[in-house]
């Protein structure tokens, strides 16, 4: 009866050993259960809740509803040695690598290019292989307070070999089954349509796993397009995605996913987004970052001086679909 389940095969990818008990203690000792305002500036939120060496997770990507203004603040504050979760992402990781913020990446999918290839060859950035679903699934395990979960994929592939998954035996029917370790990120960035000052958050539209990510992460920063009244939250509780006690900081960030879109509010600025790819191709990401990030004190200043009201109006006008988001 004391026999351990057999390990039929194990990937060699590095991961942080899951510790649900330590997570519970962290919640007990650090998460504020009081209904108090958590509305702070972006600068303050990143300074207080993102530390060098943190495991950083975020929902969505620079194309849609990603926390782009928080990425820029992380780069501006020159955070280092982050371990980044790249599930269902785009050029986000390259942007953070260009800023010198990243040492490890858990890969589901990410946009790649010369910058990342060079960083890998120089040994500056180490990748660990999973898949979009496997990373979301690891967050699900983290959100349930369990150390691991069984799943029906990854097995048999090189992806498995480069991951931290294990092929074991189902203790009930003795068939082979793959298990993945729970993931409890140090910090999660979630861009939302609306939040109140306490952190009650509404994410509209399809997403990846904002709820599980908020539950699984030690520190949660919400950037919201709009700060709404708590009375509004309580009148339509069904629309709440994340309740306040999971959240550590609320940042008001209109156009927070610029140059990406936020559904129902504004379209993507494809030209600006392609400018990063062009900068990367010409090895000029330093100039790009200087222009869009370092020379600007804040997201607000960037919107005013680099994007401009006319462009913002045009992007808002370009998003003609409101149905399902605001109706």
């Amino acid at each position, binding site marked *: 009866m004391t026999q351990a389940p057999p390990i039929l095969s194990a990937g060699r990818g590095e991961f942080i050993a899951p510790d649900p008990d330590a997570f519970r203690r962290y919640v007990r000792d650090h998460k504020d259960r009081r209904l108090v305002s958590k509305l702070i500036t972006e600068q303050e939120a990143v300074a207080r809740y993102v530390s060098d060496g943190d495991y950083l997770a975020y929902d969505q990507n620079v194309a849609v509803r990603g926390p782009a203004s928080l990425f820029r603040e992380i780069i501006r504050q020159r955070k280092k040695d982050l371990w980044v979760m790249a599930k269902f992402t785009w050029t986000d990781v390259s942007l953070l690598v260009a800023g010198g913020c990243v040492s490890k990446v858990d890969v589901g999918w990410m*946009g790649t290019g010369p910058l990342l290839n060079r960083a890998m060859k120089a040994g500056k950035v180490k990748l660990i292989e999973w898949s979009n679903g496997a990373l979301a699934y690891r967050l699900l395990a983290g959100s349930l307070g369990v150390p691991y979960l069984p799943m029906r994929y990854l097995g048999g592939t090189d992806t498995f070999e480069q991951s931290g998954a294990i092929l074991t035996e189902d203790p009930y029917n003795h068939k082979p*089954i793959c298990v993945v370790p729970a993931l409890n990120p140090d910090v999660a960035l979630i861009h939302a349509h609306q939040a109140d000052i306490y952190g009650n958050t509404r994410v509209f539209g399809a997403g990846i796993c904002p709820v599980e990510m908020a539950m699984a992460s030690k520190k949660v920063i919400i950037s919201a397009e709009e700060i709404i009244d708590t009375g509004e939250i309580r009148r339509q509780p069904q629309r709440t995605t994340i309740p306040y006690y999971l959240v550590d900081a609320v940042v008001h960030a209109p156009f927070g996913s610029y140059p990406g879109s936020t*559904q*129902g509010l504004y379209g993507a600025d494809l030209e600006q987004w392609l400018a990063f790819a062009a900068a990367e191709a010409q090895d000029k990401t330093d100039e790009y970052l200087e222009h869009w990030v370092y020379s600007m004190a804040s997201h607000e200043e960037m919107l005013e001086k680099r994007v401009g009201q006319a462009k913002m109006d045009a992007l808002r006008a370009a998003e003609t*679909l409101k149905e399902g988001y605001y109706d």
Partner: protein
Amino acid sequence: MTDSDNPTVSFTDVEATICHIAHMIEEDKLYFVQMAGAPLMALLLGKTTRAPNVGYVVEEGAVCPKPEFPLPRMMLGSSRSHFRAVQWTGMLTVDSHAALGFMDYGLLAALQVDRFGNFNSTHIGGTYDQPERRFGGPGGANEIASQCWRTIIMTKLQKRKFVEKADFVSSPGYLDGSAGARERVGLPPETGPWRVVTAEATFGFDAETRQMRLDALAPWVSVDEVLEKMDFRPLIANNLGRMEVPSEDELKIIRADIDPGGLSTGRGEWMTIDSTTGKRAG
């Protein structure tokens, strides 16, 4: 100009592949489509031209949307792509729908594919730690190729893409091809690659040996021309099918509605085909 008076049609290999897959779309099935790009374009073309009520899910959790055309150039997860879905949920939900057996077909793109339908989307050349060229990674392909009943893979017919051994197996085909190989690593039984589709040829898999088999040809290529573009020799079906030439109507829908600007479909090898004979014109 052509030798005959027959009308001609010009398209890229990507457009041809999209049209071939669109012809396979069945209205009474559910599809799991990987991200944006060519696989989603193929599904949308099939939905527009022949299977208006076909259901599909995308990784980011839109369930059976009716996209609003024209799609934006940055279509990934955009509001237009998700318009009038029956549900907006998340990745964990749609992945679970595949795990439960609801997804008949997975629709994916690959950098490299081997004899047993294992495919690569991770790196080309070098080693995993020191790749010559790193690509995006499996994305959702691993869970789709593992859990949908049948997987349709789209790629280009090139020697460096149809390889004896992939540089990296990101997502599973029939693994080493032995009976029960997928089940031995925990994947659901009776699943696996079903078709590999290129502009010039369509492949299936032999039920006994699980090896790739040439099933159908575009009218403008010969068997030898196909085999020359492969690093391994596939099985060859006794009765080879004939793939249809993309029609002007289909191309119009791709160019005006599905990929305006041609960000995905305009890049690639252009060809001009005689619509009547199906042979190369000019």
